[in-house]
């Protein structure tokens, strides 16, 4: 699959990966983590604790922004519910009354629906699949130059087994009109000031009708935690989490492209290469994820015994399709990693490799089955979305 061959790595790439390598980890107060964001501030607290959650990195209490500590990703390819990251834009409802809850299906449909939870789960075949849910801004805090917004390290993501009913079955139950073009989703969260734009996201009808796009009611075999969107959330495998609307209560079929704030102004990617400071470039809504890979058993700057082989392991994701290969770039070499079992094309997959030594920056590079390979440098964009370049670390020989 992947063969050993030499590449010329530019000095810039080496510097980009190894800049902070020589720094030893600072001694931290209990329950603090250092996300090592370039230029800081970088320290985050694991307090306060949130109900139903274990230790998470508290980026913001209100509305909750909680990051999964990276060590969790070394423990397995599934992310446990109590360690799954949390991201709300607006104040989240803290109570769900089952008898009051309704899911609306409305807009360009023949028969609008207002479904109780028991009706939702009986709307079609129940399907289940593993998929990575990743915030579009995951790793925003790692970009240089830095970008305002949620200052995530690499842990605004998780992989879970999602179970639910197909969105398509709900749409067909309502009956799509011939002019249906997009489907818009809303949840129970509301802006703190009423005339601010409600959080609504939409996808083209062909995405909405995909076989694997679902309204999920379970995550890793249990009801969704409230913080992750109980009782229902949209799951769009292979697409960024901005579309996976939590506490999903409203499905609206549109006859034209959505021009509301969260589609037309936010969560957009430039369609041309941009540099910091550029203005007035064309953009399009962010959509499918890109391939990524990380080392999980060593952090940048870890000390290792000199002259001994080192075991590397990590996780990778294909983005919007499966993984073809993971190779590891070290110095001027490319080595082929061994892949763990395939537990679903949209999930994380383990990789591992034993290196004879660890001189220079080391970075795992994922290539997906569509032959998309991670670039060696991070594609900077003004909102810090879709980070996907090879993540290099350097190990210090002790």
């Amino acid at each position, binding site marked *: 699959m992947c063969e050993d061959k030499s590449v010329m790595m530019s000095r810039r790439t080496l510097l980009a990966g190894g800049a902070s390598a020589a720094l030893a980890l600072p001694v931290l107060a209990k329950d603090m983590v250092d996300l090592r*964001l370039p*230029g*800081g*501030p970088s320290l*985050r*607290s694991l*307090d*306060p*604790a*949130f*109900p*139903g959650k274990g230790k998470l990195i*508290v*980026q*913001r*209490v*209100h*509305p*909750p922004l909680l990051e999964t500590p990276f060590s969790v990703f070394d423990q397995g390819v599934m992310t*446990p519910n109590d360690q799954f990251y949390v991201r709300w834009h607006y104040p*989240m409802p*803290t*109570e*769900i*009354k*089952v008898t009051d*809850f309704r899911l609306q299906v409305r807009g360009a449909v023949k028969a609008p629906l207002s479904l109780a*939870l*028991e009706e939702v*789960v009986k709307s079609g*075949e*129940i*399907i*289940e699949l593993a998929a990575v849910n990743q915030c579009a801004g995951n790793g925003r*805090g790692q970009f240089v130059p*830095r*970008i*305002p917004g949620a*200052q995530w390290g690499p842990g605004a993501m998780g992989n879970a*087994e999602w*179970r639910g009913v197909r969105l398509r079955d709900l749409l067909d139950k309502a009956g799509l009109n011939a002019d249906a073009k997009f489907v818009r989703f809303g949840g129970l969260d509301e*802006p*703190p*000031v009423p*005339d*601010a*734009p409600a959080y609504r996201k939409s996808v083209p009808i062909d995405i909405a009708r995909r076989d694997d796009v679902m309204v999920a*009611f*379970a995550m*890793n*075999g*249990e*009801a969704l*935690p*409230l*913080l992750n969107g*109980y*009782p229902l959330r949209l799951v769009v495998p292979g697409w960024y989490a901005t579309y996976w609307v939590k506490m999903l209560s409203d499905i609206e079929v549109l006859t034209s492209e959505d021009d509301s*704030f969260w589609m037309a*102004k936010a969560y957009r990617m430039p369609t041309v290469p941009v540099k910091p400071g550029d203005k007035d470039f064309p953009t399009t809504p962010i959509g499918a994820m890109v391939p990524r890979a990380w080392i999980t058993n060593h952090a940048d700057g870890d000390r290792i015994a000199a002259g001994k082989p080192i075991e590397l392991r990590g996780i990778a994701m294909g983005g919007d399709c499966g993984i073809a290969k993971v190779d590891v770039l070290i110095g001027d070499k490319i080595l082929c990693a061994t892949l763990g079992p395939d537990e679903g094309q949209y999930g994380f997959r383990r990789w591992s490799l034993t290196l004879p030594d660890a001189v220079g920056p080391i970075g795992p590079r994922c290539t997906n089955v569509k032959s998309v390979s991670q670039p060696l440098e991070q594609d900077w964009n003004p909102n810090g979305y879709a980070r996907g370049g090879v993540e290099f670390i350097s190990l210090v020989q002790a």
Partner: protein
Amino acid sequence: MKRVLASMLLLALSACQPGETVEFADASIELPEDVVAFPVRAGSDAMIRNCSACHSPSMVLNQPKLKPDQWAGIIKKMKDVYKAPINRADEPAIQSYLKATSAPLR
């Protein structure tokens, strides 16, 4: 929240069990209070008055060092997009507080 399904372990062993739903029960949680406040210095009163209604102070304090025009852009966005009722008279104090927040760390 009531847990009614087989444990994750069981689930992994028995592969996927299509057809199984969960039992929906009323659920509620109590969110914790903020533990990080705006450091007290010139302008912190203006920050508390204008910038703490919609999000924790950490939304501001965790930002990287930004230039004054970037901060001005953020304040404009708060007002224009999120309809933040920011007191015009407080704006100079907010600006200088944010400028100090972005000062090089010593």
